[in-house]
């Protein structure tokens, strides 16, 4: 059997610490680049894939998509392959915050490499847009809730999704490379599908016709 012993620090970094950063562990990151093929082979057996973002210098392991796993199982002639990494659902408001930060990261990638840190007040304002007006009557409560969500994400010991910094007494927030790589377009579309399902249920519960625009978006997701 092929030995993977020398990959242990990489495996530990990927599966226990949330990823390997070129900034924090330059040697280890270089090793990820040089051992790319072997790491992929190793992760393949776990139903996972290696994702390397060379620009930001970050590597993570993430589950392969269900359809890829199905294809792999078929190739191998086994019943099915379940990824070893499970996923936990976040609450809606947590996800709303992450979508804002992920959007900023997306803009950043299409920019000129400049990091985009969002001022806390601006981030809170952007998030407030998605709260129903009656909940915004307790605006202080909503602001507090958004801040708590941000702090909780930033203080995670393993793979924090959000990072913060203060400058001239102001607090700025930015999504981490982990958020960028671990939450994929498929994940976001799943979230969109669940939200639209709730909207459609609400229309149906009221006995109203689902607006064409929403039905169209749902059909597009299904396609």
């Amino acid at each position, binding site marked *: 059997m092929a030995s*993977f012993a020398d990959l242990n620090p990489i495996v530990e970094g990927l599966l226990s610490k949330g990823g390997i950063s070129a900034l924090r562990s330059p040697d280890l990151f270089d090793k990820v680049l040089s051992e790319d093929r072997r790491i992929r082979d190793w992760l393949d057996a776990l139903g996972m894939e290696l994702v390397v973002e060379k620009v930001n210098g970050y590597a993570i392991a993430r589950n392969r998509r269900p359809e890829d796993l199905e294809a792999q199982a078929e190739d191998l002639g086994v019943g099915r392959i379940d990824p070893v990494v499970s996923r936990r659902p976040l609450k809606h408001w947590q996800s709303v915050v992450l979508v804002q930060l992920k959007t900023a990261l997306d803009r950043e990638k299409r920019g000129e490499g400049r990091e985009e840190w969002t001022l806390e007040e601006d981030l809170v304002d952007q998030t407030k847009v998605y709260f129903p007006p009656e909940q915004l009557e307790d605006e202080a409560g909503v602001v507090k809730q958004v801040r708590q969500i941000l702090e909780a994400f930033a203080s995670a010991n393993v793979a924090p999704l959000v990072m913060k910094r203060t400058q001239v007494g102001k607090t700025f927030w930015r999504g981490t490379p982990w958020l960028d790589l671990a939450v994929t377009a498929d994940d976001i579309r799943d979230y969109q599908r669940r939200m639209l399902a709730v909207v459609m249920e609400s229309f149906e519960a009221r006995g109203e016709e689902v607006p064409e625009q929403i039905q169209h978006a749902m059909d597009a997701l299904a396609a």
Partner: protein
Amino acid sequence: MTDQASYASAIEASAEMRLMRQQNLPFVAEVVGRAFCGATMVEIEEVSILRIIGLVRSELVERGYELPQDPEKYLTDWIKPSSGEGWFTTRLDDFNERMIILKPAGRRVISFVEMLGVSTSSLSESALSSLGGFVTESAARISGSSDDYIAMLERQKRDIDDRISATRDRGVQEADEGEKKDMAARLSSEISAMVNGFAQIPGEIRAMAQENEEFIQSSDAPLVERFSEILDRRQGYRQSAQYKTLEALHEIHVSAAEKDRFQSAIEVLVEACREHLSKEDVRRARTLFPALTRIATKVIEEHASLSRRFEEIFRDPDFAKRHAEARALKGARDAMIALRDHGGLGRRDPRLAELGLRVPVFPMPGNLVNDLRFSKPALLAPVVYETAPFPDFEDFEGSMDMTLGQVGKGQFLEKGAIISRIEEVRKHIPEPTLCDVIAAYPPSYGTEELAAYLWVAGSETPSRYRPGSLFDAVIQAGDREVVIRCPNPVFPASGTPGEGLEDFLAFTRFSSMNELLENIPWGGPRAHFSTTSEAGDLVDAE
């Protein structure tokens, strides 16, 4: 532009009017006038405007104004008032500094304030002359007749020739005081109009870039069509009056001779008309061209960089992936709005709890069990220890006893206590194994205690692992018996924690730590299997 019938509705809709009705108009006007001039006519750093707000506030308070808030509070209100119109917007610059930008409506209000008290009747002559030239030239162009247009240019040429010859004959006619006064009024007015229009250009460029980006991300058209559309838009902007102004200013900026000629002319004009100009007008006139040309160059560079950025977007091999991601994000934002408006969400709506994104949970989170470090020499003979029975909490007489038991356990398994037991054994055995330590200190807390030793071996004290080095511990838990096959690290006096772990892992038939973990019965008293017969399954050879 407003026709007479809709003055009322124009005033109701006017952002300028709402700004002018604000209670602190003298205060904010003074701040804006000082902050948005010269090199900072378009935008200013937050820290600088806060300093100006503080300064103006002190001056006005001395004059009897009541301005009790901090500068930060005033600035926040002027950006995002709780009601009414805001004066400023913000953006982060290349160094992540927050920049404050004066909104177009705010600039028009300040321009109006600047022109208060200036008689505009003297401007009518120059305005008439400009209007005459403009309508004549426009009419000639609109006619579409080259002959008409050439005739108009010939007339202009004759007029200039006449003026040249008259000047040769009689010299330049010196301006009298009345003319100087008119020149001063025109200078002030033109500067105001110029700054007003110019200051909006960077915002327009950024808005255009944002619009283009939205287009790129939302359009389903083929890539080449999207790229062509962006190129058309860019070409359209380059033909616009705004861009031509920028180019003209940029040309002045890059030509030292041009710049000197303009600046010298302004100096002459300012000196000649000085007594008809306010101090503020003199300052604005003198700083106008250096500031405008510098900003124009910056804006042109920004425009060029935005154009490059779009090209890079299209050339990016990951474009399709990023496009998909951007579209998914936009879709999610749209769905968030739909959910807000039609989802009938209550504050504690249970549907919200599990609606969100799914994020990965690591197979090896940083807790005690997963910090285990696997060991080396195979000590396959079972080592049997009697341990304290598992506590049956129902037998406890009270919660105090329970707490006492938990505290005692905590102390026993605490890092310092574990290390001191290892050090104690090392006094008798130079390089004791975990098996030796357990022989000297029989476990009182079963699997948890073994795990605590391994955690310390992995992260807190020097330890070394050798391939295949395991031992079996039989834990007596009350009337139950549990066999644990456990890694057996050596504890040398010096070194680093977890040496040789990689080789240890490679020696097993398992390809991952996770798989190995799953095959070690850490589950406590629930698991039970006999010892030596399974040893060969766990290690490849010894």
